[in-house]
């Protein structure tokens, strides 16, 4: 074999190993977590873990439903608050922003993505929690789903804004010209042609944001209150549920892992498995959407 050929095949092997390594790491992590969670799955049972509404390690009660509800609600809240702003941002950057404003806004959105989550937590702690505490509502302590949703909304904003900007930008200009030539205004064109054409890209932006939201830990611990309880409206109207304290799946692990032993520890690993599966679902949804987007399914 020539020297060039040897380098070539060595390179190929190195790259193959690198590729396999990441696969191996994911598989190892999954297997490791699953193995540690096995005692909890065996002794508590998968169904009781998922549907049990009591989490009291002292009494051997390991129900994850309050945390699933907490993670679910805070994610829902974050998407409801963040999506309109993020999408507006994406549309603005892709369609209407003059060059110099884009030059200012885009880097600041990228900066937003780079800020460590603990800093967002601090912001939530000193600004949002006291502000939310101002609502006169029975049981409202400021810490809770609303504060956490706002923090999370800000954290997923850059993801959704930049991915949807790319999706909107990739809509062919011919569609825009076609719409304008038929006498639509700029906004009509965006609403009736550009956004529908970018729909699947925007959806995948949202799903990517969801993934980030479900996995967020430290900022949530700092503002959500961490009480193990089913979120409830505390006797008031249903939206009051967002003033309830809650705990996320991620927070559950982070708060208790340092002192957990035995079955308790295994139940925390089971929490990790639930998160793992959730993220896997979210990611494959995002992949499916993006594949559809790329594969000419522009309808």
């Amino acid at each position, binding site marked *: 074999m020539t020297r060039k050929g040897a380098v070539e095949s060595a390179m190929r092997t190195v790259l193959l190993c690198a590729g396999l390594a990441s696969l191996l790491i994911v598989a190892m992590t999954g297997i490791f977590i699953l193995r540690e969670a096995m005692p909890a799955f065996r002794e508590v049972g998968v169904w009781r873990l998922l549907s049990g509404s009591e989490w009291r390690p002292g009494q051997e009660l390991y129900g994850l439903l309050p945390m699933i509800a907490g993670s679910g609600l805070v994610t829902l809240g974050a998407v409801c608050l963040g999506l309109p702003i993020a999408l507006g941002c994406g549309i603005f950057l892709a369609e209407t922003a003059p060059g110099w404003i884009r030059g200012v806004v885009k880097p600041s959105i990228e900066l937003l993505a780079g800020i460590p989550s603990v800093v967002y937590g601090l912001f939530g702690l000193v600004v949002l929690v006291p502000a939310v505490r101002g609502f006169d509502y029975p049981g409202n302590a400021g810490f809770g789903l609303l504060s956490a949703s706002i923090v999370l909304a800000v954290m997923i904003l850059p993801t959704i804004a930049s991915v949807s900007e790319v999706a909107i930008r990739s809509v*062919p200009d011919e*569609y825009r*010209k076609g719409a*304008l*030539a*038929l006498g639509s205004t700029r906004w009509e064109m965006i609403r*009736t042609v550009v956004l*529908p054409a970018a729909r699947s890209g925007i959806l995948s932006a949202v799903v990517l944001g969801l993934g980030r939201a479900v996995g967020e830990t430290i900022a949530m611990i700092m503002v959500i209150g961490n009480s193990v309880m089913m979120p409830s409206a505390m006797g008031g109207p249903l939206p009051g549920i967002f003033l309830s304290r809650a705990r996320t799946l991620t927070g559950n692990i982070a708060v208790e892992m340092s002192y957990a032993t035995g079955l308790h520890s295994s139940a925390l690993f089971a929490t990790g498995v639930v998160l793992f599966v959730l993220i896997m679902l979210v990611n494959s949804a995002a992949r499916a959407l993006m594949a559809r987007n790329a594969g000419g399914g522009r309808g």
Partner: protein
Amino acid sequence: MADTVPRLRTAGYNLYYGSFRALRDITIDIPENSITAIIGPSGCGKSTFLRSFNRMNELIPGVTVTGKVLLDGEDIFRADVVALRRKVGMVFQRPNPFPKSIFDNVSYGPRIHGTRDRGVLASIVERSLRDAALWDEVKDDQQKSALALSGGQQQRLCIARALAVEPEVILMDEPASALDPVATMRIEELMQSLKQRYTIVIVTHNMQQAARVSDFTAFMMTDGFRAGNLVEFGATKQIFTTPADSRTEDYISGRFG
């Protein structure tokens, strides 16, 4: 030309990209219910000139114009651009149906202009598709994606989409250049039937096409400063048989361009 009324008219019209003059001093009267072809070598500004009639050049940053463009005697630069584009429809070089159903494509214009009634929309869609000679091919499949149609069908769909807003003028920017000969022939036949009711202005680089379909021909060329200007305008027959300008003769006899 004396017996026809000018529908579109430009007078001393200039267009600049930044400081570069792309169109110089164009004055032309385009008669109604006829087909006017704009021909000329590549880069002579014929598409730019065509886009002047529905103000699509305004989408390009840095474009400024001087002089007049009149539709039915009214200055189009004073008119509302949305209203102008309702009256002056456009068909593009590459078929550009929206990624929507056939029905939604054709009903797009009427819908944004306020027609909501499903029955009314359905009859507009049928009429427009019939006028665009596409009805028989798609009538049973109007919910199918427009992107599933062939290139020629897509272009006729785009014509139907333009007809649905009931324009007075239809601008066509090399509408058949992306199509095969059979599809091209169908578009040309369609133009003949449409000129009874519409004023059509077509840009084409295909001189045979201009000779076949148009009633009037405008020949454009760049001058010494690379600005496009109108060399000669007249009845197609006259332009192609006895051109007044030697440059026109050189071009149509294939000596350059």
